[in-house]
């Protein structure tokens, strides 16, 4: 069974743009090894394989991009809580992050990190498939190529920067030394710029490449029948090897390897947010760890030691201060426990893409607002007794305060909150990013609508 070999050749580009003598001279100064040499041996490289990887990335990268941008909005730039605080012209539309469904941030951030990780094998495969072009000679033949290579710098550099900073951040390795959120935001726009240009320029090439061979035929082609893609030996831009070695894997084997790699990454990472039986499978990630079987034995996001919280600070002397009304209201832990309690099953979902669902019991935030004398607040500012710390205080929007499941939790899974989980009281609200579910709450200020 032979594959269809109809090659659709796109309109020929001029050989050299202005100034042609310059580019031609550059072409003559070829360093050894550069250009379409016989050094490239893989018989699998070619427009079809590249187009296949490209098609997968074209379909999935927009999801990673979109969820990433949505999560920036989830942090509440309208309160100055999102980083970078000043996004200038690249400001995203700001809206009150919703509370329903309660797993919305769990979904967007879990997808962003999860899909991002799963795509790493595909990205590496795509880069492998086009790497001969990196060493093309002359490196540029016209102004158009100069600009295109610059845009590829944004595409590949931006993507690798996002991957590196992301992978380090989710494992709490802040080796880079700059603010992760700020760098990841600007890096994202650099990548988006490169991705947009690359898509516009290459979709026709990708479609032509995909049409050049039949996927079904390739999936039926074993190793013994694997042949290099057809190419013109005089075409300096072709990805196909001039002197291909005998294949060691078929094209379907290469696709299976990349797909299998993506699945492998999924199994090793998805558990950190999906939880359940998959969590132990994430045994190389921070959030695949087992804390035990007790009511307080689940993922800790920030230890009391790191926050400078002692048992004394959280002890019987602790008071909750409710502000915003005519008079501040002060409550002790016992007084809080005497108020109407409500129980809700809610996730904590954090920026590293992990989450954990627990059952929380506490006083509804809207009941506290009522007590404070601000029955319909426009926002609330929750301040922790922690001193310093990047997230020692957080703003909640009106919807997040008034949602019936938004709690100042005192108990979790039927037992009193442990110090590690924010005792004596922590905020837990549907859809709110983990860092804004303030632990060791000291005061809540309810803002009246203006």
């Amino acid at each position, binding site marked *: 069974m032979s594959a269809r070999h109809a090659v659709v050749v796109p309109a020929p580009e001029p050989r050299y743009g202005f100034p042609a003598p310059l580019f031609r001279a550059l072409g003559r100064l070829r360093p050894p090894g550069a250009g379409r040499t016989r050094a490239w041996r893989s018989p699998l490289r070619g427009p079809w394989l590249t187009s296949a990887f490209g098609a997968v990335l074209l379909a999935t990268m927009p999801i990673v991009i979109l969820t990433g941008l949505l999560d920036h909005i989830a942090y509440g730039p309208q309160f100055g809580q999102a980083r970078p605080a000043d996004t200038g012209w690249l400001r995203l539309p700001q809206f009150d992050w919703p509370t329903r469904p309660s797993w919305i941030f769990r979904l967007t951030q879990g997808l962003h990190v999860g899909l991002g990780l799963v795509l790493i094998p595909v990205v590496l495969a795509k880069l492998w498939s086009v790497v001969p072009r990196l060493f093309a000679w002359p490196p540029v033949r016209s102004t158009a190529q100069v600009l295109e290579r610059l845009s590829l710098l944004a595409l590949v*550099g931006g993507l690798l920067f996002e991957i590196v900073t992301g992978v380090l951040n989710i494992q709490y390795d802040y080796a880079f030394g*700059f603010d992760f959120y700020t760098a990841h935001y600007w890096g994202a726009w650099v990548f988006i710029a490169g991705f947009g240009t690359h898509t516009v320029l290459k979709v026709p090439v990708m479609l032509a490449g995909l049409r050049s061979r039949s996927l079904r035929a390739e999936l039926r082609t074993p190793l013994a029948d694997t042949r290099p893609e057809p190419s013109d030996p005089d075409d300096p831009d072709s990805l196909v090897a001039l002197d291909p070695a005998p294949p060691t894997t078929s094209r379907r084997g290469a696709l299976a390897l990349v797909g299998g790699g993506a699945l492998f990454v999924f199994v*090793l990472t998805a558990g950190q947010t999906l939880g359940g039986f998959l969590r132990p499978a994430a045994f190389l990630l921070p959030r695949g760890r087992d804390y035990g079987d007790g009511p307080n034995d689940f993922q800790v996001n920030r230890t009391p030691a790191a926050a400078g919280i002692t048992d004394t600070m959280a002890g019987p002397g602790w008071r909750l201060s409710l502000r915003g009304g005519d008079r501040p209201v002060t409550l002790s832990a016992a007084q809080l426990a005497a108020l109407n309690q409500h129980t809700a099953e809610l996730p904590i979902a954090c920026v590293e893409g992990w989450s954990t669902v627990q059952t929380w019991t506490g006083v509804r935030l809207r009941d506290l607002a009522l007590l404070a004398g601000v029955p319909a607040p426009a926002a609330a500012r929750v301040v922790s007794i922690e001193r310093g710390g990047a997230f020692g205080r957080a703003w909640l929007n009106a919807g997040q305060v008034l949602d019936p499941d938004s709690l100042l939790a005192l108990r979790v899974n039927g037992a009193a909150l442990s110090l590690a989980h924010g005792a004596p009281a922590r905020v837990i609200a549907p859809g709110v990013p983990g860092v804004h579910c303030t632990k060791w709450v000291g005061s809540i200020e309810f803002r009246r609508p203006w």
Partner: protein
Amino acid sequence: MIGTLRRFYGAHPLHAVAVLGGLALAGHAALATQAGPGWTRMAIWFAAALVGHDLLLFPLYATTDRLLVGAFGAGVNHVRVPLLGCALTFVLFFPGILRQGAGSYRAATGLDQSPYLARWLLLCAALFAASGLILIGRRAVRALLSP
């Protein structure tokens, strides 16, 4: 007219629109980092990520693969696939494996990174073991099916 522009520029004028638009956006984002601290570090990491992949990682794995094919011939996939699995997991999870960022890890989770190295080594062993089992299985099937 378009033809002259194409010969001068090297592609259709709309190509220029696409690339210049993209470069403007990328340039704006890159310049925006200068408003805050740490922008030189960001630039260095950007360059390092590019160079790290294109001029370090790629030559490393390409050369390794060339050597593997030379050494193992037809059975190379039984070495290549588990090795790729080990390399990929190392690249993805090295902070835990090499105990990088131990302080911030403990501050965030309350645990330490000691189990990861052993777990990764066990995973690598399991990958090679599985590959070995598949190799043995294939040989057995071939022996059974041959006359």
